[in-house]
């Protein structure tokens, strides 16, 4: 009886702590959302207003009217396409390295080392290259760059997941009449599904949040939302309501994606922890 009581108390303390921490982390996001619904006066009022007197959608209306909101669509196109490409090419590379020992023992290490290059070190050479190739401010340009930048990560992660698949599962399919290509679809992809989703999410999030390359390599045609947000930081004043509304628009897709794929994400973390 006493032990049960103590356990109950323990649980209550834990729950309280978890709630407190969650609130702490959620607060900035709550504040971001609230700012986007406030009038300018409310934004700067002191003491701060926790809840706007009336929900204002005017900031959003302006973003859509001026076409600023399309930058979210640009981000979606660039991040989505480059994720699909990086996942497809990267998984095939990873399979080759894992199963055929392509490149011997060190290729995988070399590949992941490419990911450690600071973007700032390469962005200007790439800019000059892109000017020459005519790829500045184009979708293909940005997609190509994000794909290349994400490939090492995809290869490294997927190699780990593929090595975790018992090789007999693949061999059984080859003996049973499948080509290696068919076998990839029938065995390797289903077996590494959790890893595929988890890796894809991280890849997408990287491309989604990327700022430096987008800033240097785009002008007006394919501006991504991260670059667009900076346009609201003016010399005289900052357009806080636009900044917050744009940030909300940029955050929502991530919320939606992560919400849908949460269970893969959690499994992906633990799988990656075992082998990488």
């Amino acid at each position: 009886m006493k032990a049960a009581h103590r356990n109950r108390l323990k649980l209550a303390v834990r729950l309280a702590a978890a709630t407190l921490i969650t609130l702490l982390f959620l607060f900035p996001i709550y504040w971001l959302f609230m700012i986007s619904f406030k009038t300018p006066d409310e934004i700067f009022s002191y003491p701060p207003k926790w809840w706007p007197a009336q929900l204002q959608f005017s900031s959003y209306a302006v973003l859509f009217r001026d076409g600023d909101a399309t930058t979210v669509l640009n981000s979606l196109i660039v991040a989505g396409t480059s994720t699909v490409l990086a996942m497809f090419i990267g998984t095939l590379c990873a399979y080759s390295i894992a199963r055929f020992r392509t490149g011997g023992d060190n290729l995988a290490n070399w590949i992941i080392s490419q990911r450690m290059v600071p973007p700032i070190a390469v962005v200007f050479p790439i800019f000059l290259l892109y000017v020459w190739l005519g790829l500045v401010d184009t979708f293909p340009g940005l997609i190509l760059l994000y794909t290349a930048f994400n490939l090492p990560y995809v290869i490294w992660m997927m190699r780990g997941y593929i090595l975790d698949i018992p090789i007999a599962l693949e061999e059984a399919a080859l003996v049973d009449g499948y080509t290696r290509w068919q076998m990839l679809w029938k065995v390797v992809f289903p077996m590494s599904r959790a890893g595929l989703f988890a890796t894809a999410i991280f890849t997408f999030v990287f491309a989604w949040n990327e700022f430096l390359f987008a800033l240097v390599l785009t002008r007006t045609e394919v501006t991504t939302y991260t670059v667009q947000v900076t346009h609201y930081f003016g010399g005289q004043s900052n357009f806080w309501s636009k900044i917050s509304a744009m940030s909300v628009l940029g955050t929502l897709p991530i919320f939606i994606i992560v919400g849908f794929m949460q269970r893969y994400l959690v499994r992906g973390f633990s799988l990656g922890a075992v082998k990488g």
Partner: protein
Amino acid sequence: MSDLKITALHKYYGEVHAVKGVDLEIPAGEFTVLVGQSGCGKSTLLRTIAGLETADAGTIEIGGEVVNDHAPRDRDIAMVFQNYALYPYMKVYENIAFGLRARRTPRAEIDAKVRKAAQMLAIDHLLERYPRQLSGGQLQRVAIGRAVVRNARLYLFDEPLSNLDAQLRDEMRGEIKRLHQDLGKTMIYVTHDQIEAMTMADRIVLLREGRIEQQGAPLDLYERPATRYVAGFLGSPTMNFIDASLERGNDALNVRLCDGTSLALPMARTAKLAGREGQRVVLGVRPEHMSRALAGDTRSGLVRYEARIDLVQPTGARTYATFRMGDTEAVAELLAHDVSQPGERIGLAIDMNRVILIDPGSDAVIG
């Protein structure tokens, strides 16, 4: 007509020479067991036949066609793996149908074949389950079912029972053998377990360090081993090997142990050993060829050996008695009550018709 013919096959893993020139011909419908210790190349040989490894030299013919350059799927083989190799995301039904789907078999035919195979293996009530819901024995049945539905020319088994517990292993052993009798297909079965090899095989191929040490019917190998290795590998408890020398006795050859005992060989066996008098030999005696000596037993070829028993291990019907013979420990397989406690001195009758003599230099059996 042979289903499988292997000629001068070599396989390297980097520096390791895993298969060193194997020649093997397996007649249609035969159940062949490749047996040997781990690292002897038996699994490599099987995987090379399957096309999961490439041969570095030599040819592999399946059904009269050289298949060295064929992908596994073009070799008309089905294979059962040690760890079942079932797909965790497919139900049992789909796992069994997997190979048929690859070959675009009509839906109705797949259904009929899957249900027939499932019935044969007594897993027809499990078709809608996932592999994780099955026991080890059931998993192995599903894995066998997936091979059986295929109607392949050659069936390969890679240590399929080594993950099962002892009782289940006995049961499945019988079942695979019955399956072979019913289907009449050519099967090649890899194991390290000599009991599996003895009980299941039409023909045993005993491999050692990448070469075939000896092949033949199980009892052939058991009774007429070509080398000391074969003699020692088959049989449990293992054959006793005692250093000795050959000497001329009154009218026949004697085997003289280092403790001074002389054991007379039957006349029938002396001809083959002519000219070897005085040479060192190793005497090979199976435990079951020693029995408690009975007064008045006049069967020819029995010689008496006085033994002081050091260790008694009853197994039920039989009792294993350990004693010193010459300069080694020997084990005799006696009747249950032939010996009751260590320290006992008993007379053993050794059946000299059944012993083998080995040349200690070459390890070859010479008589």
